[in-house]
């Protein structure tokens, strides 16, 4: 059973988003997503300073037999990327919610995160997919 963290919000496309104390948001993929993808072999991250509109493609995560786009959960500017993933993509599998984070954004509107899926709603979505 994949872990669904309580302290983050989710997208239906399986990204998680966490609002930090400094007002920035951190984005990664859920445990359910890393499990479905299988062994991650590469992560393509955006350049720092790039702005994204909510819902646009921001990064790519590759396993041996699939490649998935990671969408910007909110509009904002990239302020940091987890460059450790370049040499150790398996971190996404080992620690999807912590060491395996992808991107940190400064959101244009921090309240926009409120519109994303709650942990309960995301859990329901995952249950649906597995049944």
């Amino acid at each position, binding site marked *: 059973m994949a872990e669904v963290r309580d302290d983050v919000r989710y997208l239906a496309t399986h990204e998680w988003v966490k609002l930090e104390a400094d007002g920035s948001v951190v984005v990664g993929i859920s445990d359910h997503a890393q499990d479905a993808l299988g062994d991650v*072999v*590469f992560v*393509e991250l955006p*350049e720092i300073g790039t702005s994204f509109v909510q819902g646009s493609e921001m990064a790519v995560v*590759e*396993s*041996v*037999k*699939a*490649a998935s*786009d990671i969408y910007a959960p909110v509009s904002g500017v990239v302020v940091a990327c987890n460059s450790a993933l370049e040499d150790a993509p398996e971190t996404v599998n080992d620690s999807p919610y912590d060491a395996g984070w992808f991107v940190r954004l400064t959101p244009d509107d921090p309240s926009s995160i409120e519109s994303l899926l709650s942990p309960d709603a995301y859990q329901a979505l995952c249950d649906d997919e597995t049944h």
Partner: protein
Amino acid sequence: MPFIPHTDAERDEMLEAIGVTTIDALFDEVPMSLRASLPPEMPEGISEMALMQLMQRRAKQDEMSLSFLGAGAYEHHIPAAVWDLTNRGEFLTAYTPYQAEASQGTLQLIYEFQTMIARLTALDVANASVYDGATALAEAMLMAVRANKTNKSKRIVVAGNLNPHYIAVCEAIVSNQGLVLEVLEPDEQTGTIPTDCAPQLSEAAALVVSYPNFFGGLDPVDALTDAAAAAGALVIGVVNPTALALLKPPGQWGASGADIAVGEGQPLGIPLASGGPYLGFMCCRKAYVRQMPGRIIGRTVDQTGQPGYALTLQAREQHIRRGKATSNICTNQGLLVTAATLYLSLLGDEGLRQVALKSHAGINQLVAAAGQIEGVSRRFSGPVFHEQVLQLPVPAADVVNLMANEGILPGLALGALWAPMANCLLVNVTETKTSDDIDHFVTHLANAIEAIKSTC
């Protein structure tokens, strides 16, 4: 029934198992209005013997006794073992190596090919090949636009002394994605690209350099590479693989080397065969490998830890990435890669170097001898690899027609490509030409010129 093994009894037994009485009944989901009858244009089938007689006659019709025509496809000696082995059914009739365990022969061979091409070009990685040299360049342009994070531009600066057919192919392929090609005019005297091209390179995604160029000459690749690097443009080298046994490889151009190298693999054991199938090779720095299209083979291990080979980086490819793939290409030129790998193994460094050297010496000898004919001279100054443009006192197209009637292809008349070069003939010599062949060529050339002059 050609190549269909069924006896009537077997056919009937199969139909009975399916539960129908005729094969036509199996097409019952095809609307009646769409069922076609036999088109009258189709001939009746013939035997293999009749086919061979027909094709031998037609092939004979086109045979020439001596050729000095190159222009992107070169007549080299092909060791007997190359096609003897390439045509083994195990290479010839295998599928694309999707089932790695059942394809280790092809997969290891491609890994060896990738290694050989990377070593020849002095770059890090090569792919398993694309269709031909021209399409390899088109793919390299698209790749450079994706890979260049400094100059985010769709403008590609192309050396004007590149094979014009390559430029035409690239226009046809890349313009659909909004890329713009800008041509750098070569110098009138040398035919090479001037090194003061920095203004055009600014903000460009890439510079394409041909080495040797279409006229056989050698551009100042070090200075051009440095100029492009300074402008933030990637450098794409279009290279002749035979020449690289003798000439500076793209990975060593300038201070930092070219970023991508592509070329036509035909000189590596592939017959002229009217232009194909050939193979386009493609290599690059490791940093750009995920932007490279086409099949790539990696070395890995199996469950017992022994080495094995498999397709890798497949997430770039159309069967996984669909609309977001690096290219729509599905296959490589597998069989031609087999031939090229055998060719390079048989020749080795020294063998390929001798082919290159003898070709180079041959063109110099031919040009020196042809220069004795009145009115014949080199069109461009500077060193060449194995091809050279001769300036003639008469239209080159007329010379080609006259000599071809005598069974000699003297080269390519350049007037059809560049109107001001109507009297220019592009001539190639490879290691297959003896001193006698060259003398023969020069005699016939002199006669042809004389004949044309006298009819004017």
